[in-house]
């Protein structure tokens, strides 16, 4: 499983890096003579309504979608981990404060909150990242906090305190590494969610702006032509599914590897 998952992810990373060489055409070049062409040897994935090569757009789209999945997960993960550790370790009013903030964030439906933040900040990828960081950290904070609460009463934590280690050291050297396994696994499934919400935000026109190639945007733009030219929606959609599958497989394998399910 690990091999398959990491293999898929690695393939996409290589594809993204090699995009200029791997893509047969310029992703935004419009060829007026070749609109809505079905897949053929010249255009293996066909062309869209502006005559752009779908294969090239899918390949270039990997750059943006991978970037979204990574940045969209890293910041929530970092913020959530720090907040969760502090809340769990110190307890008391620190804990109460962070937990109430989390309750407030969770009280709104995820997409509604994302959309309102992005519409305040204005459409674009950076707004998406900021919104993701503001909303996504809560799950990580909860996960880590619960782990820290359990771990801090265990003997090795008490032992560390009795040996005079500093609080920072106990928190980040002793407790956090033991608390991290669960959230590292969650990172992988979260990447799938981020990828999908990134695609949905772009679909709604608030994320990546045309003519930039992004899978969600491509699906959105092509929906009017679904009945005549299925290939324009199918291939970017498939790309999303396969990448998501790669993340899930890796997450599953990681969970086994780290003994999260024990």
């Amino acid at each position, binding site marked *: 499983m690990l091999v398959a998952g990491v293999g898929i992810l690695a393939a996409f990373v290589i594809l993204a890096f090699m995009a200029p060489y791997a893509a047969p055409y310029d992703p935004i070049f419009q060829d007026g003579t070749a609109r809505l062409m079905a897949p053929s040897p010249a255009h293996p994935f066909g062309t869209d309504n502006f005559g752009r090569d779908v294969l090239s757009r899918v390949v270039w789209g990997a750059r943006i979608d991978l970037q979204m999945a990574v940045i969209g997960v890293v910041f929530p993960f970092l913020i959530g981990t720090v907040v969760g550790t502090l809340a769990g370790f110190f307890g008391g009013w620190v804990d109460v404060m962070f937990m109430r903030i989390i309750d407030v964030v969770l009280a709104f439906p995820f997409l509604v909150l994302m959309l309102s933040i992005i519409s305040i900040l204005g459409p674009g990828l950076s707004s998406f990242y900021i919104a993701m960081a503001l909303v996504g950290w809560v799950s990580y904070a909860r996960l880590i906090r619960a782990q820290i609460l359990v771990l801090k009463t*265990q003997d090795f934590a008490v*032992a560390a305190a009795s040996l005079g280690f500093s609080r920072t050291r106990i928190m980040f050297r002793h407790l956090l590494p033991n608390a991290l396994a669960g959230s590292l696994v969650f990172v992988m499934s979260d990447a799938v969610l981020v990828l999908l919400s990134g695609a949905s935000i772009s679909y709604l026109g608030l994320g990546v702006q045309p003519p930039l190639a992004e899978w969600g945007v491509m699906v959105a733009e092509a929906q009017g032509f679904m009945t005549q030219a299925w290939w324009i929606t199918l291939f970017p959609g498939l790309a999303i599914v396969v990448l998501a599958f790669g993340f899930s497989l890796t997450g599953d394998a990681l969970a086994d590897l780290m003994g999260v399910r024990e």
Partner: protein
Amino acid sequence: MIPHLQIDGLSVVFRGDDEARILLDDISVSLNKGEILGLVGESGSGKSLLCRAVMGLLPSRQLQVTHGSVMIEGQVLDLAQMQTVRGRRIGMIFQNPTSHLDPVMRIGGQISEGLIHHKGLGVAAAKAEAIGLLTQVGFPDPERAYDSHAHQFSGGMRQRAMIAVALACDPEILIADEPTTALDVTIQAQILRLLMDLRDSRGLSIVLITHDLGVVAQTCDRIAVMRDGHVVEQGEKRALLAAPQHPYTQALIAAHPSVTTAGEHLPPDRAHQPVFELRDLEVRFAQGGGLLRKGKELRAVKAVSLRIWPGETVGIVGESGSGKSTLARAMLGLTPISSGKVVFDGLDLTQDRTATLRRLRSDAAMVFQDPFNSLNPRMTVGETLAEVLRSQGETPEAKIQPRVAELLEMVGLDRSFATRRPRSLSGGQCQRAGIARALAVNPRVIIADECVAALDVTIQAQIVDLFRQLTAHSGLTLIFIAHDLAIVRNLCERVVVMHYGEVVEDGTSQQVFDHPKTAYTAALIAAIPDIDPDRPINGGTPALNQPELTL
């Protein structure tokens, strides 16, 4: 005479994905009518597995009985008959009554269930019979116990309730799997006494599984010693204890704390100031309560005054809930003190907290109960030790690795252990690593909190020996907290007895063990399981009237 229960050449094999392991190898044991058979062995010896195999309750499909048979009164049991035999002819009780009693069902209901199901009694008749059983197993108010839930009872009473549940179907044979391991010594003695009484009154045949030779010596008629899936020795208990044939049995007997003798100690230095001085120390915890309702307060440690002198080896003993662990944590500044004073080396913890804590962290170290839990699972033993050395800041970087090797050697571990993680160590090795970590501080005082309670008897003896060596030749002060008095008697020159948060007795080991001043200490001492089969359980003294029934 046909034995009541006979296990003949039983073998159980674990079939894993790629290998098959023999867990029980050709076991033959027999149990006569009205007899108590003690099945002794350390963890992993296969004693519990054997009983599960007999009951046809193997915990996994990968475990298979490959050879052998089980006979009741000469009749071979096959799997089809198991359903009727289980519960009906063979009853079973377990180590942990809390997890084997249904938490949402009343005790009475659980007993009547068996009566109605197996004996076909009506509801009213079942209730009457259940109350009779509760009386038999020693509930002072059986009617009320009938309508109570498991959580309303203490551990000892729960074990009694479980025995009543097992007896409900009127079995001929009772298998008791470590029935007293989770209980305090005085309660253990009561339960063992109860089992013997039941044997006499009902003619039960009992298989008693335990790791404590002392328990079998005083209750059983015959003993079978198990190790690594083999029965290494079995026989009549007096003969076996007096002249053990197998080297493992000899080692087990030699390791039993009631036979080893106290070690030599350097005399404590009472001329200078004490290492620890506690004055009217109180630790209270808030219990329950909410925003509007004020909760109760639990006084875990009540007005304890103690002086511990340099070089002393002090045992603090008491049963669970006596406040001994809380006391240790309060002394190290790990639990807030409610009132009173802790003075360490002349520094007052309440008045000058930062300075005292700094001194405590560099001069005192703690060893914990659960060896696996007390080491960071993600760090190797070497990393753990090196971290302590670095944080103390006294060892130059270049000397850290040699010092780690030296520490490992002090606790009897090879230096190759430095690269291993706790998970790959055995319990005893892990505990040694924990002691090495305590020694890394180069402490004047070590507080060991129940640090041998989770270990097998032979490993226990090794760790106690290690402590003895460490304290014999240095000025190290050892505060050894334990519920097992026999170990304390072997190791410590002074004993402090705690009961419900108070110090009830304090004196030299000899004085306390030979002439206890309070009835509680006397009862505790009498309840120590002794390997001498002629010494009655509980030393023949009547059971102490304990406020056990918490309804």
